[in-house]
């Protein structure tokens, strides 16, 4: 099961714990929060249902993600130009979900590079990320039938310091001119520095992050960008495993429900301005249903 699903389940568990705490203080169940339980149950049932549908051979369509499709193109470009592919998994540790999502994409990049006999270089800012990345790339080369081509020296630790790391990457990009730069993970101020440097050396750039503040920089300076949820969906898209696809579909349904509730809330809030008698319904909606 993908990490983002785990997070969601943790959140549900947290809610359940809060409910249990309330139950402990006031009784078996806090009936005021019952609608929230309904939402949680809906989410769990949706995920389980779609996983079972996927496992029984039902078709779950995930729309094409341009950034992931472009990975082959980026690696192909590096191969034709006789240069390397630079992969940057963000500046956070493996405890950060975005880093793990980035490592999932690294697996795809490494497998493609193994098939094309291209070189993938992964400088990292955290030692644990280095270990994880090495294992991932090694597995990918093995899966591609090219274990001999794996070189662990290409995945190395630089520094924990944010701008020390960025300075190294920028210098390396200018000196070695990789043909493709792929940024997948959690980024802060360094996003624009990296993307602009990559653009200036004529590299194909693919970025993916869930940091809303950095997305505009990546979109403007990179060739392809995985935006927020797309980045998390990459795992399901790449693996095509029924559990991940079903989980993705279930979460999408939960999001549709959330959008519906937001819309309904907005309508109610507007309506109460004209029909004061709806205030009770609005209070129930905001106070009870949304907790």
């Amino acid at each position, binding site marked *: 099961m993908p990490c983002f699903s785990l997070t969601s389940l943790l959140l549900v568990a947290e809610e359940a714990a809060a409910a249990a705490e309330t139950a402990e203080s006031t009784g078996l169940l806090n009936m005021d929060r019952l609608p929230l339980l309904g939402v949680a149950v809906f989410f769990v049932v949706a995920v389980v249902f779609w996983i079972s549908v996927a496992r029984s051979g039902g078709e779950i369509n995930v729309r094409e993600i*341009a*950034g992931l*499709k*472009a990975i*082959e*193109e*980026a690696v*192909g*470009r590096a*191969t*034709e*130009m*006789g*240069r390397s592919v630079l992969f940057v998994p963000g500046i956070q540790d493996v405890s950060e979900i975005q880093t793990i999502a980035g490592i999932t994409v690294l697996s795809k990049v490494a497998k493609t590079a193994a*098939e*094309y*006999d291209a070189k993938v270089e992964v400088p990292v800012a955290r030692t644990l990320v280095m270990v994880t990345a090495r294992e991932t790339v090694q597995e990918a080369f093995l899966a591609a039938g090219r274990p001999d081509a794996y070189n662990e020296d290409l995945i190395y630790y630089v520094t924990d310091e944010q701008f020390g790391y960025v300075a190294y990457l920028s210098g390396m990009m200018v000196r070695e001119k990789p043909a493709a730069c792929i940024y997948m993970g959690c980024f802060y101020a360094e996003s624009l520095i990296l993307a602009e440097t990559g653009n200036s050396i*004529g*590299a*194909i750039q693919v970025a993916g992050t869930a940091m809303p503040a950095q*997305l*505009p920089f990546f*979109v*403007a*300076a*990179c*060739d*392809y*960008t995985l*935006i927020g949820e797309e980045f998390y969906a990459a795992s399901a898209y790449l693996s095509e495993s029924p559990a991940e696809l079903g989980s993705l579909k279930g979460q999408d349904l939960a999001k549709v429900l959330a959008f519906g509730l937001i819309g309904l809330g907005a309508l109610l809030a507007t309506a109460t301005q004209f029909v004061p008698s709806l205030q009770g319904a609005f209070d129930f909606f905001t106070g009870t249903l949304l907790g």
Partner: protein
Amino acid sequence: MTIDPNSINVILATDCGSTTTKSVFIERQPDGTFRQTQRGEAPTTVEEPFADVTIGVINAVTEIGEVAGRKLVDEDGRIIQPAGTDADGNPVGCDIYISTSSAGGGLQMMVGGVVKQMTAESAKRAALGAGAIVMDTIAANDGRKPHEQIQRIRELRPDMILLSGGTDGGDEKKVTEIAERIAPARPQPRFGSKFVMPVIFAGNKDARGSVDNAFDESIDLQCVDNLRPTLEEENLGPARDAIHDMFLEHVMAQAPGYDKLMGWTSAPIMPTPGAVGNILTTIAERQGKNALAVDIGGATTDVFSVFDGVFNRTVSANLGMSYSISNVVAEAGLDNVLRWVHLEGMDERELRNRVKNKMIRPTTIPQSREALVFEQAVAREALRLAYVQHKEFATTLKGVQQQRTVGDTFSQKTSGTTIVDAMKLDLLVASGGVLSHAPRMSQTALMLVDAFEPEGFTTLAKDSIFMMPHLGVLASVHPQASEQVFTRDCLVVLGTCVAAAGDVKWGKPAFSWEMRGSQNAEGDLLGGQLKLVELTPGETATVTVKPARGIDLGAGPGNPVAHEVTGGSVGLILDARGRPIALPESRDEARDVVEGWYRELNIIDEGDA
């Protein structure tokens, strides 16, 4: 050889096909224009017992000479050049003689590149554009192990190999590795034991030395400019020219009688498909049009297109109307073929039987109405599939850096998208037996519309006697004459198709139309309807269409558009069936709908079922 176009009055052209050598005769008319006046044909004689292609050429030319009352062949069996008069004052000879050839299977090539979707694809495009059949594509990422690639090269018997790979200053290692796989494979040529395998290297210029070192004297290596000097640029010209040169020097020189034939021609002999591409490109350039031509044969279907000046050609090797018919039905599916059959009683079993019968007797032609309907249904699917393959191949370059703005956040288009745009298509040309020899012109027109689904305004035409190859090679000598004969004699204009794309709802208003000019008419069309309006050859009119909301006829959804259209043997076809054309799911309903379309276009008569 440089020829002054003003001194050319009489042109003789031949196309040496695998079975038939076709000749055409073109003369300058008193008004100064060029017209095709005579044609002749004779069996090709490249195989034993004759083993001399010029015998068939002389036979075909003699036939023309007899009809034209002009002596074209002298007592020594040579074509008389230049044109003049004999002692009795009778006209003799021609000013130029030109020829194309696809005899003996045409030009068969193998291509190689580093990345299949990049340099290898460019190499394939260069080879196909030069008129070759691409037997296989070798690439570093083609999924085959080196020994499998060597085995494959060994099995093939190409006429020549085109090798590309690496941008200039880019990869050297992998392109050299591919050369090192070709060398030990020692590919054997089809013709002559003394034949030295020509290899054209159009890759990284820095790798020329290492590629040269990989080959010994059994390979004749010629290095030309890189097909992809950078990944943002594709330079096919030098490689195509080299293919033509090698074709003449190596392949043609080995084929029986071609050394003699080459001595007769005023311009280099071209591979037949290359010549077709040449005329299409010339016409598209001179008239500023986007054009698409199709040639459907027994075993293969060739599709040629020129969009925004970019020429592409594909050969669908297993889509044809005789030897490949079984494959067409297998690929398209029985349901897709049957949807075009309006006759009751023609079910899957009947279709299967007819397919297998055609496989047993591939060269038979339809003798009954049922056989004709069935064959035209299969042709629609063969053309549709060939068009799909063409669209997949005719793409923008892959591996190219994109320029983005924040506005692209939710619409990031990838490179490698097709350049074939049905809405931008101006001219659609048909050739090949099932299209050229359909009993009614409207059958050819509807087969084209159903298979290619043109959108907006598109002129439909067919190549009357498959003269495009002759005109293609003529275009290299006298483009003006070539264009004049192409538009006046080669093309039979079927009419113009005005088709709606977008959100067409069956039974709901699709667009209203108004025609003013040689003929005046107007009306409204509902979604799913097809209408034929009379507009005879030579007539022109301005057609104004006002589409319903969400429907596009060339000026964007819901926007009216006016366009000048030309008439033809069929007329003006107004198509409100939407794109892609979808039929009702019920077989009976679909049959009724298709029958209605056929009646509207006079494909079947009132009394026919």
